[in-house]
């Protein structure tokens, strides 16, 4: 494989690497003397330009020949392209949100690290090889650890980063162990090859080594998507990290991790599904995930009720949402209806969820800049001070709770349908879907708690409200509009995704 053909195949990633280096170099070489605002503006502009260039490259140029795939090390297909475009969109929004940030002097490094994390995610979604998955997972994680620790004046940021890092290191060790067992079983790093070995092994009961591999892999990815019981880092990281970092961890990282999680499970462990239905419980990765998903939904939703910090609340809500998305991962197409791939609902769900949380974090960022905190009481009376912002928050919260016609509703709807249809006539995952619906109802309560503060409680601060910058309001508004539009017309994402899945043959 020559370098030129790699550069051609991975052109968007290459563009992103160049952009990251350009941001770094521009800031370190030419902008030391400038004011912070200018530096932030220029850095963000370069970053966004790079992301847009990568998006343009993917949307405008035709796909390269599907034959040039480097044995699964790097794939280019329409589905991956869509996910990558979504990741880049989330990156752009994150960069835009961080333009207002005032927690650091190292602006070039900050933007560069966001871009590097995005590069890791892009590689993560475009591979079917466990070696590449691990390396890109580490690239993403390492960038995110540093982004979490970025606010050096705040001890909480350091604490969050340390927890995130230690948990992440442990999880990476587990993942690596699991992946090496997989390599040991199959003698290959390619997911499809592994699947061949795996399905050969599971003729009469599962290979014990395979069970260990499944469990270890699930631990690693469970950490990345913050599913119970690997969620302990999430509340602290969401609360302590600088807001744009937390937003990126909550959005982009989730999209990439869930996509690759689903791929590893569906492709790599094909033939070792087992069954998660209560009547016919069979060991495999589906029941493992079923337990994790159920725990995530219950614990996430119940713990969120008790939170007084909005960021912690969002963290627990993220844990709960991880439970919902896991339903889609488990929804293996039944032999009866092989063409209903659950990847479509999954991609739709995680993209809209990413946009929604990003928006919610943008609102929190605005509030925190004005009041200095993110407690629920800091949101009191926001509707009078900033009606537009409050309305956007209303949309985000209701979408997270799953109220039609917002994107969150359709996401849940599709995911639950996929989970229901997966077991064929027997409705194997029915119990999980019922649990999920019940827990969604619970979740409405704490989302409404936030809205109650915003709309009903009187404002506590006596100061004259500082006017919001038009830029940040525009970002929040754009995100809210996206959530609304994607909710009203889910086909905008779903249709291309579904046709892409057909092309990819998943």
């Amino acid at each position, binding site marked *: *494989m020559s370098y030129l053909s*790699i550069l051609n195949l991975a052109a968007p990633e290459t563009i992103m690497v160049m952009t990251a280096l350009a941001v770094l170099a521009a800031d370190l070489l030419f902008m030391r003397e400038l004011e912070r605002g200018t530096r932030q503006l220029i850095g963000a502009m370069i970053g966004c330009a790079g992301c847009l260039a990568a998006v343009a490259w993917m949307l405008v140029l035709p796909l390269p020949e599907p034959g040039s795939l480097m044995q699964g090390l790097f794939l280019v297909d329409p589905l991956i392209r869509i996910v990558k475009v979504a990741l880049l969109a989330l990156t752009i929004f994150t960069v835009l949100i961080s333009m207002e940030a005032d927690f650091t002097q190292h602006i070039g490094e900050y933007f560069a*690290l966001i871009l590097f994390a995005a590069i890791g995610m892009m590689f993560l979604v475009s591979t079917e090889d466990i070696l*590449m998955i691990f390396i890109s997972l580490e*690239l993403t994680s390492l*960038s995110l650890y*540093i982004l979490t*620790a970025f606010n050096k004046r705040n001890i909480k940021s350091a604490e969050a980063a340390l927890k995130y890092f230690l948990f992440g290191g442990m999880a990476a060790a587990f993942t690596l162990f699991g992946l090496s067992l997989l390599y040991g079983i199959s003698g290959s790093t390619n997911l499809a090859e592994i699947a061949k070995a795996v399905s050969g092994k599971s003729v009469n009961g599962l*290979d014990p*080594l395979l069970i260990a591999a499944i469990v270890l892999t699930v631990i690693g990815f469970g950490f990345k998507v913050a599913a119970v019981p690997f969620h302990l880092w999430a509340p602290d990281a969401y609360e302590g990290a600088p807001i744009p970092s937390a937003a990126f961890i909550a959005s982009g990282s989730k999209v990439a991790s869930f996509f690759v999680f689903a791929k590893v499970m569906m492709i790599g462990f094909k033939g070792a599904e087992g069954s998660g239905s209560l009547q016919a419980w069979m060991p495999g990765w589906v029941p493992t995930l079923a337990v994790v998903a159920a725990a995530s939904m219950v614990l996430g939703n119940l713990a969120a009720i008790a939170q007084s910090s909005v960021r912690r609340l969002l963290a627990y809500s993220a844990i709960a949402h991880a439970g919902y998305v896991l339903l889609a991962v488990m929804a293996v197409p039944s032999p009866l209806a092989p063409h209903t791939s659950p990847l479509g609902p999954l991609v739709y769900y995680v993209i809209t969820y990413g946009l929604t949380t990003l928006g919610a974090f943008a609102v929190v960022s605005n509030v925190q800049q004005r009041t200095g905190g993110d407690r629920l009481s800091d949101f009191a009376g926001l509707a009078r001070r900033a009606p537009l912002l409050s309305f956007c928050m209303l949309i985000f919260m209701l979408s997270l709770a799953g109220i039609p016609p917002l994107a969150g509703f359709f996401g849940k709807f599709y995911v639950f349908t996929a989970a229901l249809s997966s077991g064929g006539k027997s409705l194997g995952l029915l119990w999980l879907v019922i649990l999920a619906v019940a827990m969604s109802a619970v979740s409405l309560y704490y989302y409404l708690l936030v809205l109650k503060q915003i709309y009903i409680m009187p404002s506590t601060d006596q100061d004259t409200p500082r006017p919001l910058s038009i830029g940040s309001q525009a970002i929040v508004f754009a995100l809210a509009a996206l959530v609304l539009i994607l909710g009203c017309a889910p086909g905008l994402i779903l249709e291309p995704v579904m046709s892409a899945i057909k092309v990819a043959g998943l």
Partner: protein
Amino acid sequence: MENFFFYFFAALTLIFAFLVIANPFSNNPVTSAMFLVLTIASLAGLFVLLHAYFLAAVQVLVYAGAVMVLFLFVIMLLDLKAEEERHIRAFGLGAGLISVGAIVSIFLISLLKAPLLSNPAPIVHGDTLALGKLLFNQYSLPFEIVSVLLLVAMIGVVLLSKKELK
């Protein structure tokens, strides 16, 4: 003979690794770090048994040499008096033992039950030339990504160790 050496080095690795985290004779972090060096050296022995001389040498060069010495530096620069006098709490010990026991039992059960591989592992080409060819042909993309990863790590280290100017 090979088998004997395998078990010998494996046992050494395990014993030293255990002494890294729970040394009954000393609570000093420096001692732990030195046992880590020994762990890594015995691991290199395992690599040699696999005829992966390159990996063995790199393992010693990078980990036992550079990385561990930097570890020791950091340990020395930190004031670890508190660490030396630390006592493990009963709860932590209990919980740790239970979870470790659970994991160990899972592995033991699965390993004991696991049938021997019907197809023997592919012959390992551990020599430098083969490794280099693989690294720069088939695996050039991961190799390049690792370079980005190292760049990120470097940025992070410089950034986090810098004094924040107010």
